[in-house]
């Protein structure tokens, strides 16, 4: 049972590293939000659940932390994305489609 917990914690730690690497590597704000939110939510969930499996007396508190992160992290990243869009941060040069601009043009017409 402890081996399962160690493996799950390792998957979580690897995903946390990859999410932070994506923050450094990707070209613009919206791509960085995607990497930062998805990978760190997954990584924190798995790390916390893995520690809870290794140490069974702590399982319910660890599950509480994991569910709290799972609920609040998408909300805060959505708020930051909306703020970035409203404060006029543009997409990167290699972007293919900008659907909010198309929607605003359709609203004006």
């Amino acid at each position: 049972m402890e081996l399962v917990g160690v493996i799950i914690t390792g998957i979580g730690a690897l995903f946390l590293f990859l999410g932070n690497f994506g923050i450094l590597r990707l070209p613009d704000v919206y791509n960085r939000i995607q990497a930062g939110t998805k990978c760190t939510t997954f990584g924190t969930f798995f790390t916390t659940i893995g520690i809870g499996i290794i140490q069974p007396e702590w399982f319910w508190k660890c599950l509480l932390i994991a569910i709290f992160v799972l609920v609040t992290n998408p909300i805060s990243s959505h708020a930051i994305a909306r703020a970035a869009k409203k404060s006029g941060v543009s997409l990167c040069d290699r972007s293919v489609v900008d659907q909010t601009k198309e929607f605003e043009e359709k609203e004006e017409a």
Partner: protein
Amino acid sequence: MNETIIIIYLSLIVGGILLSLIRMFLGPTAADRAVAVDTITTTIVALLVILAFVFDRYIYLDASLVYSLLSFVGLCAIARFMEGGF
């Protein structure tokens, strides 16, 4: 869970935090820095849970829960400020 595995996991997580810190210093706009801070706080929640196991202190789990709550509230405040709200 022996010491080598714990050192590998902690170095992965702390190395990731250092990469995000580089982005927080470089970041061209304010939104970049806010995203980097969001990622760093979520990573530190996981780091505190692992440290609670390493030092065998139950109270670190409570600290981790309060830390995630405060980071959520703080980032919502930063987002409202960047929108031009308040």
